[in-house]
């Protein structure tokens, strides 16, 4: 089992204090349809950034950016869909409603709350143990962005309604072309084996990102490498720059995915000599791990898997026995969540 190779950097159980265990996932995200990533609202241009093209190639180019929140939001939602389906979302104390994102009343008990975190005013907070990074396109934004004119016609099929008034629903907006590759580094801290399976599942099975994701935004994620270490590995910007150098010229859209994967793998092989890296999964071990994740998420095993994962937080949901009875309130220091192991 390849997942056991990672055991030195996996936690045996959730603990409240960090213990310096890092797992790094190298992810390639490829758009399968037109996709929209923008931060300034409709009509604005795609998220992009002027950066150095490569590590050695010091031309400045404009790259597309898939920001960290645009990655993690759909991925945690995917996981939550299944938690909801398997009745693993808890009700919160505040208004007895079922756990829901962005309501200021998270349940603080479910798998999603424990892993991806929450911040509720006054009531407590949980840091996310999943650290994402802005992912960059390999090619310059100018090569991989297109324009679409959209017009919303009336039900009579024309741009004029039955009174003859012209429609104003005409707009031009930018989109990211299909077949654009984003390279990404995801860092996991102090996660357990089942948490790792849950997170990898979320990344692999999430298929829609960005705006208007019911129509566009189809994306395919692939994991190219997994590292275990005591420190963080290079950033996705450095990864994309090194890969750009490794690809060599000429580069034009659409890039052959196998060529990109080979170049990326070549770059990350050098990372095993970096300070702090203790484990790197080989290609075969990686394939085994992915199929292990798929088995756990399969129809047959999903229920058991998710319930077991949820069950692992049970000690933190219990109220500690009151050992200092009669000593007044505020003296009970044995709330399990606050115990440092």
């Amino acid at each position, binding site marked *: 089992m390849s997942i056991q190779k990672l055991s030195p950097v996996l936690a045996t159980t959730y*603990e*409240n*204090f*960090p213990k*310096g265990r890092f797992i790094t996932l190298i992810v390639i995200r490829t758009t399968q349809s037109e996709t929209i990533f923008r*931060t*300034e*609202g409709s009509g604005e241009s795609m998220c992009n*950034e002027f*950066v150095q093209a490569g590590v050695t190639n010091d031309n400045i180019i404009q790259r597309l950016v898939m920001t*960290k*929140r645009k990655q993690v*939001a759909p991925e945690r*939602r995917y996981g*939550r*869909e299944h938690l909801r389906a398997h009745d693993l979302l808890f009700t919160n104390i505040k208004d007895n409603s079922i756990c*829901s*994102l*962005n*309501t*200021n009343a998270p349940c603080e008990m479910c798998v999603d709350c424990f892993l991806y*975190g929450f911040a509720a*005013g*006054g*009531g*407590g*907070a*949980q*840091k*996310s*143990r999943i*650290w994402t*990074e*802005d992912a960059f396109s390999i090619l310059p934004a100018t090569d991989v962005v297109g324009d679409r004119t959209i017009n919303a016609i009336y039900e009579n099929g024309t741009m004029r309604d039955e009174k003859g008034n012209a429609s104003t629903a005409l707009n031009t907006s930018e989109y990211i072309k299909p077949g654009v590759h984003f390279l990404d580094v995801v860092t996991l801290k*102090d996660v357990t084996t089942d948490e790792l399976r849950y997170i990898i599942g979320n990344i692999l099975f999430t298929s829609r990102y960005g705006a208007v994701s019911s129509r566009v935004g189809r994306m395919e994620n692939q994991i190219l490498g997994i590292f275990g270490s005591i*420190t*963080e*590995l*290079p*950033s996705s*910007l*450095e990864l994309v720059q090194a890969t750009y150098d490794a690809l060599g010229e000429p580069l034009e859209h659409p890039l052959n995915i196998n060529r990109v994967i080979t170049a990326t793998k070549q770059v990350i092989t050098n990372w095993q000599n*970096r*300070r702090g890296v203790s484990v790197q999964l080989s290609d075969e071990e990686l394939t085994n791990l992915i199929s292990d994740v798929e088995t756990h998420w399969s129809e047959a095993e999903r229920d058991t898997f998710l319930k077991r994962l949820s069950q692992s937080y049970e000690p933190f949901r219990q109220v500690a026995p009151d050992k200092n009875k009669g000593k007044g309130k*505020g003296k009970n220091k044995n*709330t399990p*969540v*606050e115990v*440092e192991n």
Partner: protein
Amino acid sequence: MSTIPFSQAKLIELNCLEPVFFASRELSDTYYTEGLLGNYALTYALGWVNSPYRLQGQATGRPTYKEDFQTIAQSCYILPASPIGRVTFRFERFNALSDAYWYTMTNNRVATAREDLPLQRQGKKPSSFRASNFPQTGRLRMIERGNKFQTLVFGNQQLPDYIRLGKFASKVKVNVLKEFPVTLLPPGEYQSQFYLNVADLPTQIEVFAFDLISIPPAPILKNLHFRGAAWQIGEMIVPAGLHYCGRENRNE
């Protein structure tokens, strides 16, 4: 102070690989990051002290800087990081959405209770439509990717290659530029080029002039002109006896 607790100091450069956000100032729905990196944030980010993953109960009421830093105050110290050159910022708009299929954006609130919609249409205000007390939409001023900061690290600690900073745990690269011995200068009039945390200043110095950057948890001074003992690190000068929460402890 006659002895120097730290025999050496490292000049380090922090390179922002991602936009960095701290809520230094909050103006209406815009959240500003000041152009510096606080040393308490850096202390946590470097992993010298840890904060728990989950805060509950009384722990949410007050930060534990004093308790946390007490354990390491004798062995290391880091100054707030000052920008190399001009700081550039970027603005970003954010909005939060729920995981429901139906939602509506009302007055700073993403409402998801569809059954409240008929009430809302009658002009009544169901509670799920009232403004929320935590931000649902707004603008962030962040330190732009590619900005560089420098700071001094006192003590002999190993430094990681990368750290995570700010509200969004943005990746920052750490480069050690140079190591210097720390020498003690006798009391006199000095000018410090570095940013200094007010809470960490020694009590024995006389302060003449400074610029104040008012941010939580403690204000930061720059261009400090003072009289007192000083540490010299290469060509750089800082007041002698800098210490985590130094001012606090002596007042007690």
